[in-house]
């Protein structure tokens, strides 16, 4: 699996970096695929409601009512019809890219199986919605869709009477069947919406709306397309004639020629196999589950910062179980925790200056503890050569690979770093500058690692980087997996600037001890 994933991941990284040169980081379309999906869904809903007002639901009147919209009322109903079609196409595109991206980033296994599994029926329903939509126009394309769809269903041994006989000849056509399609075309998108809501249940603060600029751009391009290349019907359906040459919407109907020509057992077998593989993928093979975050009650003061920062809703604040005089304690749900460590970065007791007691914070990653991190920082810092200004780099598993990079300390996620570590590095004279790196901006693998880090450094989110830390000695570069050259350049530039920076005020007195309660 990993061999297939890696080239695709490289491709996504490349494309994201390329788009990053023209879009601000948060606008990058590739980091907004799910949000764009929602946006297209709303456009489809709004335009769908409008065209439904003018749509005649009788099978013999439907075609003319759609023609009326397209030709008589082209300026509004016609545009709405085109928006409805093109936003649906856009939805398929962003949905498939979103699926591929989550897969290539390995964000579909382990704890994330839930979003993935719910995504699979969403995928199917989006297609059903699109196909029933093409049916309603009752033009030659609709006739083709109706006949191929029902012939395909008839390959299954479920129907006593072949469903396709409903479209045998003009006198076979019944409005009952057509009414069923209209019903499905409304019900299926509504079910999809419910599933989309379920899809996001295990994600805190999901990005549902794209940034305003991206929304405007996407909407204007759909609108322009609708005006330049309006959606048209392809002549009224006539069951006494074979449609001949058709203009297919390849996004929704691209597989129809195959359904039409390949044997039923093959197409049904392929569809079922694909579905089963998609559903089984989170366990093919399962993610090696890292040890989840662990709460140490003796050090937890119930401040709830970890719960506020966890991107996966894995921490609940519950009643105190140990009698300490705090109102709550943190509790980790192991089935939701991905071991990103962002909670440890948020905990006020993850304080490297603490010497009196062993360095055990209120919450910690067993496989990469804050205590181990401090040891690593000291080891790496001491090994930095003094012939140039020393820069200590904090990075993560999802950014530039750090193995073999001198002066680098790898975290589970950059958001795992308590800001006091920066203070620690500088005041313990382990380096002259601290550089934080990680994923590409707005594309954090753990969703909020970068956002929280930036806010902690800026002093707008607890725990904050102390004011005494000289800001010119702390830099960030969100370089991403392919950003090794950018990172190296940033280190070199930082070293140059540090050579001329004001000298660090070395603390005369030992740093004060911060304890959880006093800091809260």
């Amino acid at each position, binding site marked *: 699996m990993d061999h297939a994933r890696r080239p695709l991941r490289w491709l996504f990284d490349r494309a994201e970096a390329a788009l990053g040169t023209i879009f601000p980081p948060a606008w990058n379309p590739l980091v907004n695929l799910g949000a764009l999906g929602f946006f297209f869904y709303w456009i489809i809903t709004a335009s769908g409601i409008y065209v439904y007002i003018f749509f005649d639901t009788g099978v013999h009147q439907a075609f003319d009512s759609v023609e009326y919209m397209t030709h008589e009322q082209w300026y509004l109903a016609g545009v709405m019809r085109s928006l409805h079609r093109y936003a649906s196409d856009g939805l398929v595109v962003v949905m498939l890219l979103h699926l591929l991206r989550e897969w290539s980033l390995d964000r579909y296994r382990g704890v994330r199986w839930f979003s993935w599994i719910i995504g699979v029926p969403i995928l199917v329903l989006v297609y059903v919605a699109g196909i029933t939509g093409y049916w309603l126009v009752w033009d030659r394309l609709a006739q083709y869709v109706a006949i191929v769809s029902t012939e395909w269903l008839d390959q299954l041994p479920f129907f006593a009477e072949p469903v396709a006989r409903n479209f*045998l000849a003009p006198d*076979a056509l019944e409005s009952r069947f057509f009414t069923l399609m209209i019903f499905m075309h409304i019900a299926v998108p509504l079910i999809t919406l419910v599933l989309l809501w379920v899809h996001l249940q295990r994600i805190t603060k999901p990005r549902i709306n794209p940034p305003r600029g991206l929304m405007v751009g996407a909407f204007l391009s759909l609108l*322009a*397309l609708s005006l330049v290349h309006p959606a048209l019907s392809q002549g009224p359906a006539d069951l*006494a004639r074979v449609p001949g040459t058709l*203009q297919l919407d*390849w996004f929704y109907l691209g597989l129809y020629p195959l359904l039409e020509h390949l044997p039923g057992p093959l197409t049904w077998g392929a569809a079922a196999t694909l579905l089963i593989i998609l559903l089984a993928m989170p366990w093919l093979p399962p993610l090696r589950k890292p040890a989840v975050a662990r709460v140490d009650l003796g050090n937890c003061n119930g401040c709830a910062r970890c719960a506020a920062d966890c991107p996966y809703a894995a921490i609940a604040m519950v009643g105190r179980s140990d009698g300490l005089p705090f109102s709550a304690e943190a509790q980790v749900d192991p089935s939701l925790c991905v071991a990103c460590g962002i909670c440890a970065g948020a905990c006020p007791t993850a304080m490297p200056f603490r010497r009196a007691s062993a360095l055990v914070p209120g919450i910690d990653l067993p496989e990469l503890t804050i205590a181990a991190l401090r040891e690593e920082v000291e080891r790496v810092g001491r090994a930095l050569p003094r012939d140039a200004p020393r820069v200590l780099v904090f990075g993560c598993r999802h950014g530039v690979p750090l193995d073999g990079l001198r002066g680098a300390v790898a975290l589970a996620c950059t958001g795992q770093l308590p800001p006091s570590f920066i203070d620690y590095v500088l005041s313990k004279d382990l380096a002259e500058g601290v550089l934080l790196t990680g994923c590409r901006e707005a594309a954090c693998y753990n969703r909020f690692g970068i956002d929280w880090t930036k806010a902690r450094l800026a002093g707008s989110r607890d725990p904050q980087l102390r004011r005494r830390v000289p800001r010119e000695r702390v830099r960030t570069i969100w370089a991403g997996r392919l950003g090794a050259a950018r990172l190296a350049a940033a280190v070199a530039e930082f070293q140059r600037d540090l050579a001329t920076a004001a000298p660090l005020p070395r603390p005369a007195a030992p740093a004060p001890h911060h304890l959880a309660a006093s800091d809260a």
Partner: protein
Amino acid sequence: MREPLRWAGQTVFFVAIAAMVGLFASWPSYRQFPEDQAQIKLSLSHGAQRVEACRRLSAEEIAKLPPAERRPNTCARERLPVHVQLLVDGDLVFDEVVAPGGLAGDGPARIYRKLIVEPGQRELVARLKDSDRPGAFDYEMRAEVSLAPQQSLAVDFRADAGGFVLR
């Protein structure tokens, strides 16, 4: 990159995506059926006669049945297969014996077949056998049809209408 360049880049990006969406929403077109041919759809759903005709139950047999299910006749449910032939201008284009549907073999036999034919004057002969009477077919239809290019003609069967029907 400088700001105006970025705006230009974004515009190019959106135009390219919109063009891509617009393009594949209708292109390339697909030749679903050759324009110079016609189609015959042979489709029917017909229950053949039962394998065994109904017979009267004897008094002892009736007595053995639970009281609620006592009835004078018994009818085996299984049906015979249906044999259908279609000839176009004397050529046998369809000749199949189709088993009855349903798990117990008690349902209608179903046929759904699309045939491509040259347009023009055609002589159709359709035959169907749904009994175990030896020899000839039970139903036969002969028809002269004139098929236009791209026309779709359905050959259906309705026992209650006396046999084959063209639709």
